[in-house]
């Protein structure tokens, strides 16, 4: 026997179940998608490393094909990182601690505009404006620092080099690093800052003593996220760089990156061919590299989560 108080109203129970099942399945679908990304890339790249008519496994052939591209990708990304990271941290500091408070929000929007410009437009800009503008710089570097292998070789006459590509990538990752750093710098406890200032610290000493220790994990993860973006950036490099063999020289044409190689080669590759499998295989390599970088970034953040407020 049940009283009306303990007897529950069954209306709407079905709705509750259906809705929660829907939400769970959406989440599971995301996980499945990511698994399928890995699976499809692996299956489709099989032809690149295994060919019956060439005597089974052809790993060395694939390795010879892939390693210049991996190194080219890393070079371009590291140039971008070296150029962008200090500027981005400076801009974030400017917005959070130096700019007049009335304007700091507007300045943040202006920097976000950099992120709004599509990558193909950056590529066009790098190809038509930045590259030609850098030609005299390359000439100067070659004349005065030509004994360093980085600046050896004939300087490019079009400016379409791996260094130009790195600069364009640096511009593209600047807003990402800036916005991550800015968020963290703003969260620095006001009490820490005021305590430092009250002890007579100058503004820079205050930043060094209270803001940077608080934000260290955030800065690193912002830089790693920028690196992940630079590694996977396609169009800017595909347009800017005139691809070629792997060389140590940054100022002559040559080198290529994985995304640019795929974008330039894939539309021409016949479906199901070994060439297409090869391109998918280096896509998989790129996927693994960026996965590693992003997971490291997340891990650094989560390790510092408890005491830094960064997330």
């Amino acid at each position, binding site marked *: 026997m049940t009283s009306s108080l303990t007897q529950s109203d069954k209306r*709407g129970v079905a709705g509750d179940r259906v809705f929660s099942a829907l939400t769970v399945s959406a989440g599971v679908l995301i996980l499945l998608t990511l698994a399928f990304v890995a699976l499809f890339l692996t299956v489709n790249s099989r032809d690149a490393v295994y060919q019956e008519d060439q005597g089974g496994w052809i790993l060395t052939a694939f390795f010879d094909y892939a390693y210049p591209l991996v190194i080219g990708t890393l070079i371009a990304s590291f140039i971008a990182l070296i150029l962008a990271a200090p500027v981005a941290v400076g801009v974030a500091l400017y917005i959070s601690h130096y700019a007049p408070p009335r304007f700091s929000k507007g300045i943040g929007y202006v920097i976000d505009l950099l992120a*709004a410009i599509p990558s193909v437009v950056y590529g066009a800009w790098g190809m038509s404006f930045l590259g030609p503008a850098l030609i005299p710089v390359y000439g100067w570097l070659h004349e005065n620092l030509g004994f360093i292998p980085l600046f050896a070789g004939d300087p490019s006459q079009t400016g379409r080099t791996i260094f130009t590509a790195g600069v364009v990538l640096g511009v593209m990752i600047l807003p990402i690093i800036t916005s991550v750093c800015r968020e963290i710098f703003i969260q620095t406890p006001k009490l820490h800052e005021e305590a430092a200032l009250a002890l007579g610290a*100058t503004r820079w000493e205050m930043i060094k003593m209270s803001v940077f220790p608080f934000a260290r994990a955030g800065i690193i993860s912002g830089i790693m996220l920028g690196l992940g973006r630079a590694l996977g950036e396609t169009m800017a490099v595909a347009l800017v760089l005139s691809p070629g063999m792997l060389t140590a020289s940054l100022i002559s044409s040559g080198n290529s990156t994985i995304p640019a190689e795929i974008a330039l080669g894939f539309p021409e590759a016949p479906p199901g061919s070994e060439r297409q499998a090869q391109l998918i295989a280096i896509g998989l390599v790129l996927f693994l590299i*960026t996965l590693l970088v992003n997971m490291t970034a997340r891990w650094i953040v989560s390790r510092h989560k408890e005491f830094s407020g960064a997330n």
Partner: protein
Amino acid sequence: MTQTPTPTPASVQGPSGASGLTEPSSNGVPRRSSLTQNTLPSWLWIAMLGGSLVLGAALSALFGFNLATWFIFTAVIYILSSYFLTRTKVNGRRATDGLWTNLVYLAFLIALMPLISVIWSVASVGIQGLMAPGFLSSDMQGITGLVDEASQTEGTPVLGGIFHALIGSLLITLAATVISVPIGLLTSIYLVEYAKGGPLSRAITFFVDVMTGIPSIVAGLFAGAAMAWFLSVFSGVTGLLTTQRSTLGITAAIALSVLMVPVVVRTTEEMLRVVPNELREASYALGVRKWRTILKVVLPTAISGIASGVTLAIARVIGETAPILVTAGFVVNTNWNLFQGWMTALPVYIFRQFQNPTSPNFSDPSEQRAWAAALVLILIVMGLNLFARLIAKFFAPKQTGR
């Protein structure tokens, strides 16, 4: 009152003591207070900047004057001279402080330069192409190398437009939005409302973060491979669509969804978390079921933030080139059907016009069209960004006045 520059108790306590940097006294000799004694006059940095500009211009003129070297020399002269001046006149700590202040301002100026340069270069070249007849309303059908050649040699107007690319971008982005918004929204509802911190929710949070970093070209490769597999299985089972190729508008939409879902999840999750718990509890107290509470109370409260997050996600994917290039291809005519034939999107159009000019000998018309298309694309993306901010601002839930 003493007239000497050495500080005395009187000069500190006096009515003019702490108020200014230098106070002209009766005979015109500046008198300094002990509080401000250790600083440089406030006009000095302007004078030094002016001096550095002149010196920088002079040095730059030695190597053949241009703006870039002028900027570099000025910055170096100004930063070094103010550092050493402060160091000798005041003290080392203040000098370091000033040095870093200058460097931070310099970083900001450096960051502004590419933005101005990109917008200027696109606008200055693109306006001309945008004004060409029928640029927005015609496609590239019938535009051959000969037509472009005639525009250069005989002075006919540059023909051809971006109508097909606009339609392609619109349809592909719309389809991607239709796919990814429900998935992203439901996932974030699961994370905020249902998950209790178990392994599934932690895995989803982690992998959504990881997904944010998937290179766009890899998303394109995945969508192409997945669609090819699906079509082969489908035609193997049903015997239909045996000749269907996987290069379709919908394949590109799937690729863009892979990029869009994590953005939607992240922004929506943040918005749902700031919905006050009192609202949910009030709804439960009235006996409303959880799913109706979410649909009727939580979502309407957060709708402005969600809408602005979705708009930002659209703005992000509409500029993507690589995944569409490898999944939807490029054609010259307008294709309205997502499920049949190749499609051109605006970014791919820009890329192709630069990379493979319509007339190999006369690339100017192609570049003019590409810059104009880039201008249109930037205007679309910035318009979407502005729209998102406006939504967030004007439809934000009221904080007070309940």
